[in-house]
């Protein structure tokens, strides 16, 4: 019997973050070692009981991939040429509608080219005469009718303040593309918005985890903003300002940093 698995390895295995060779070794060990099997089973069960935090990356066999590839090619041509165009248009309609707003609906910074707006709660919580939300509402409803892209749908729900649906859609999108920082950032924003509305520590913790994951993949103003928002530390806001020292977002970042004690 080889040495038992470390906590790090068990956790990485459960999260599906090991390469094929490491995974094979873990399975060999867990199938033969009662303690490690029991430990792994229990961690699986915890994650099953607390879904949403972890990303599952299905593994496909080589033969399946080859067979599927030819069938997928034709569909892919359609999707590659028309799917993204349709999705970009849908996202753009949301961006355009949001440009009409005086305040942005969520604290987080959404992917896409949403213009900066100062934050003022969720759009449903503000007065209609203070914020003309009709164009956004119409655009979001139209988007939700047309799009099949869970990322775009998630952003639409987020803009409408429908955070449960936003988390669901964005989680689906993140499962399909676990290293897409735009999706992860938007998912972090959705968790953060829902956490603040519901006073849910669990959601806020998920916002931090998801934002950290996006940040660990790519360090951009987008990932830096949502990470700083989730962590809300001076250090994190400072890291944002190092990437974006001179924009309206940077001004807000300074304000937020100044509110925190050194």
């Amino acid at each position, binding site marked *: 019997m080889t040495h038992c698995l470390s906590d790090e390895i068990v*956790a990485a295995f459960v999260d599906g973050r090991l390469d094929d060779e490491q995974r094979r070794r873990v399975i060999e060990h867990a199938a033969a070692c*009662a303690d490690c099997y029991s430990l792994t089973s*229990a961690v699986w069960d915890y994650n099953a009981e607390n879904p949403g935090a972890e990303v599952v990356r299905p593994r496909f066999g080589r033969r399946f991939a080859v067979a599927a590839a030819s069938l997928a090619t034709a569909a892919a041509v359609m999707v590659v040429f028309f799917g993204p165009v349709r999705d970009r248009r849908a996202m753009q309609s949301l961006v355009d509608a949001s440009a009409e707003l005086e305040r942005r609906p969520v604290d987080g910074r959404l992917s896409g080219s949403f213009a900066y707006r100062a934050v003022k709660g969720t759009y449903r919580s503000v007065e209609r005469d203070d914020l003309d939300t009709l164009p956004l509402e119409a655009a979001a409803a139209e988007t939700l009718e047309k799009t099949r892209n869970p990322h775009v749908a998630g952003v639409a729900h987020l803009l409408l303040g429908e955070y449960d649906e936003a988390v669901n859609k964005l989680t689906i999108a993140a499962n399909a593309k676990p290293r897409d920082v735009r999706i992860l950032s938007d998912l972090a924003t959705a968790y953060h918005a829902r956490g603040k509305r519901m006073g849910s520590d669990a959601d806020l913790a998920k916002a931090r985890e998801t934002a950290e994951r996006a940040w660990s993949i790519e360090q951009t103003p987008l990932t830096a903003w949502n990470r700083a928002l989730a962590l809300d530390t001076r250090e994190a806001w400072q890291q944002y300002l190092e990437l974006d020292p001179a924009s309206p977002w940077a001004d807000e970042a300074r304000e937020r940093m100044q509110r925190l004690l050194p």
Partner: protein
Amino acid sequence: MSPEQTYLEHLATIERIAAFVARRNHLKPEEAAEFTQEVRVRMLDDDYAVIRKFERRSSFSTYLTTVILRLYHQYRVEQWGKWRPSAEAKRLGDKAITLERLLTRDRLTFDEAVKMLTTPAGSQYTVSELDAIYLRLPPRSPRPMLVSDEHAPEVAATDNDPGDRAESRDRERAAREVTTAIDRLIESLDAEDRLILQLRFWQALKVPDIAQRLHIEQKKIYKRLERLFGVMRRELEKAGVDKAEIGTLLCRGDQDLHFGAEIHGFRPSHPTGGADVRDNERDLR
């Protein structure tokens, strides 16, 4: 962020995981509180060593879950006192240890243990899983229970028909033999197949749950199980297991494939209820 800040930020998560572990292992409220306190203390040990050792190879939440479950494995040894689980229970995992503890240390009947572990709804235990575990635990003789003479007639009146009891025990014995044969077969397979079948038969998990845990596509698991069931059918037939029994065990739909006693119309005879204990007591007279 300092380890202390990380600890404070994740304290709610830590406590939630500790509560999960306590529920899973059916700790009493005071034991659960003690364990949660123990977890907090261990997190602070050696200047937050647990947090400092985190290498970001997984999500922090999964890492904490693993660490806290490991802490429980250490903690429970003290909690058990003189009681020790069987090697079989250890092999089957912490749920089996909990079931065995209730049956042997706490002297519950199987039905009582099932009721306790599957209540309330949404509990971490399922009846089919407990059935599967039960058939793999070594049968232990229950502690004899003295019954005064004044209760003896009542005891006799509540006893089942001796023929029924013998039949019930025969069925349980047969089910145990089949599960032993299956487990022996599972041990001879390669590691990934073994793990899939363990999750299937020991934890009574459905294919989508197995696929999610092992990060394997569902279709692949279905095909794999189809092949493995073919192998198992042949081997069990060779071992002399009744064909109808094999069919019952392997060919059921995804929803109810388990070794549950309910399929065969019996509940385990070992400590299932007062009647069996009283039987034993009478045999000792």
